């Protein structure tokens, strides 16, 4: 089928789904938002972007003044790409529209890991003005420094439509940092983001996403991951600032033998926020593995922390860990860990705990000379610390810094 035919089919499917409510999360009236942005201008040198925008982006892990620590950069403001560049061989970074023009095989990756008619949000992306990044690691190529991408919401009342395609070719290795942030703390907006990941045989991808939204923004990411033989996908998600409403439940399918998916999520939120965040993994091939770890802290908002692992092949193994901390009098954390085994010989487990900080732990630290505030901060910092196996030290440092910043938000 030609690109045009394929596109027509997707448009039809999307039109049929444009009223389809998502199965989870508060329904958002998309008609209140516009897809038309102010056509921000392209910047060859991203360090010349406005200082305020750069500061916001830096908070979300995107460094524009020192690109030497990155192998590539993509920046999207509202629905327009304003910069894309590569500083290392072996990796491609470009706006997804450009990749569509460049590669005939792009339809193979288009709406393949995520369904276009999943809900009204995926449909809206297909039917309206959108952009997104295309990031590809070439076969056998291993990039040391991460590729960074920023999805920046600038205009009030805008719906940001994003469709990303990430491909790790066989035996390649790459790290991606995506920072999502907004220009203003007061303006409203809606972020819709589809990300389709294709992890080929023996490839490794770490995907670190830092969300630094504002209290008036609604967010509906839709991610799908397909992992082939011996591939590894590791997602680190950090929500560090309050957001009005956020619902996502990415799905990873381990279709190749010994494929591995790991999801680590750190959610920190306060009053007025409503989060429904999960991770789903289908272990569809022999020897597939997964680990889902989530940490949630609320000082007043509502957090639904989901996890779902399904074992459909022999010798698969999965573990789900969901821990929540309620600080202060208000706040709700609802942990929903789910496991489904469809045959014998599989090994799935979970642990979940929700509560407040144990007084006994605080007093233990106080007996070492820490004040109550210091003891509480130390315990919160420890709670948020997710040791991520296999994360390069530089990335681990950056994640630690981001978590420390979110800890300040809580304390």
């Amino acid at each position: 089928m030609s690109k045009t035919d394929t596109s027509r089919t997707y448009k039809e499917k999307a039109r049929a789904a444009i009223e389809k409510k998502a199965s989870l999360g508060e329904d958002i009236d998309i008609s209140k938002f516009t897809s038309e942005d102010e056509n921000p201008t392209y910047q060859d040198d991203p360090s010349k972007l406005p200082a305020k925008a750069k500061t916001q982006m830096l908070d979300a892990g995107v460094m524009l003044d020192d690109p030497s620590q990155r192998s590539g950069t993509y920046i999207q403001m509202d629905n327009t790409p304003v910069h894309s560049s590569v500083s290392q061989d072996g990796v491609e970074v470009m706006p997804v529209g450009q990749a569509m023009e460049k590669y005939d095989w792009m339809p193979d990756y288009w709406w393949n890991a995520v369904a276009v008619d999943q809900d009204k949000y995926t449909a809206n992306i297909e039917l309206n003005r959108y952009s997104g990044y295309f990031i590809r690691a070439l076969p056998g190529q291993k990039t040391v420094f991460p590729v960074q991408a920023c999805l920046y919401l600038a205009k009030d009342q805008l719906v940001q439509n994003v469709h990303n395609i990430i491909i790790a070719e066989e035996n390649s290795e790459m790290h991606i940092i995506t920072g999502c942030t907004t220009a203003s703390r007061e303006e409203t907006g809606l972020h819709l983001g589809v990300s389709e990941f294709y992890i080929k045989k023996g490839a490794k991808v770490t995907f670190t996403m830092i969300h630094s939204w504002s209290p008036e923004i609604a967010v509906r990411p839709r991610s799908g991951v397909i992992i082939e033989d011996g591939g590894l996908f590791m997602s680190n998600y950090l929500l560090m600032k309050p957001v009005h409403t956020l619902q996502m439940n990415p799905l990873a399918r381990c279709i190749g033998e010994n494929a591995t998916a790991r999801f680590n999520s750190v959610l920190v939120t306060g009053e007025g926020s409503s989060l429904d965040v999960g991770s789903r993994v289908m272990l569809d091939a022999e020897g597939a593995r997964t680990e889902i770890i989530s940490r949630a802290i609320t000082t007043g908002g509502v957090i639904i922390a989901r996890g779902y692992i399904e074992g459909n092949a022999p010798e698969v193994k999965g573990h789900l860990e969901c821990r929540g901390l309620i600080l202060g009098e208000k706040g709700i954390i609802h942990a929903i860990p789910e496991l489904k085994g469809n045959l014998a010989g599989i090994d799935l487990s979970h642990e979940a705990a929700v509560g407040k900080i144990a007084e006994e732990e605080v007093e233990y630290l106080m007996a070492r000379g820490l004040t109550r505030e210091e003891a509480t901060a130390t315990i919160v910092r420890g709670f948020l610390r997710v040791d991520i196996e296999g994360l390069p030290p530089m990335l681990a440092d950056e994640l630690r810094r981001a978590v420390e910043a979110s800890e300040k938000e809580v304390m």
Partner: protein
Amino acid sequence: MLKIKDLSVAVEDKVIIHDVNLTIKNGETHVLFGPNGAGKSTLLMAIMGFPKYRITKGSISFKGKDITNLSVDERARMGIGMSFQRPPVVRGVKTQDMVAACLQGRGDGDTISQLAEKADLNDFLERDINYGFSGGEVKRSELMQLLAQRPELTLLDEPESGVDLVNIALIGELMNDLLEKNCPIQQRKCMGLIITHTGHILDYVNARTGYVMCDGTIGCVGDPHEMLATIREKGYEECIKCYLGRLPLYE
């Protein structure tokens, strides 16, 4: 000096300790014997200042200052430290974070490594504190933290319980370091109060004053080695009978 005067302590609404008097001078180590439920741990917890252990009567003074109403952390910063019998697991807080907290800026990463080496806990620094630790590892970790904290008064709640024979010598060594047993007596400042159920630790740590505690009161004061011999020979029941005969019963 630690001076405890007419101390009564309640947990919730139940008075556990009655009219305890005890003085530990600088450089001295005292030992508290007693059967299970005698109130030994309650006394230590009250000296450390845990809010659950409410002082209903009497006073505690340390280094000449009345600390009866001070919080746990204020007492810790004044120089009181405690080795817990069953410390909690704090997930996400690494053993090295605890040692660093105890150091209060007095050392660096090297100091932490040296202390871990001493306590044979090098492999534990990166682990969550007390998570999956064996009995002996818990005790060594407690002592390692105290060596970082360097308290003037160390409260040790059954430092040898759950420790095997190989490890008990190391525990003794760490305690001797903490209590400055290697210094000449005149130069020692550090004080210790040790709860022991079995008395094994006395083979490794020297102490000159012992108490037998029963039903929340201190019945006997004397040489701890002699006391231990009596307890071993005749059991706590004989001890209790002996001092019940000598002391007025608490109403």
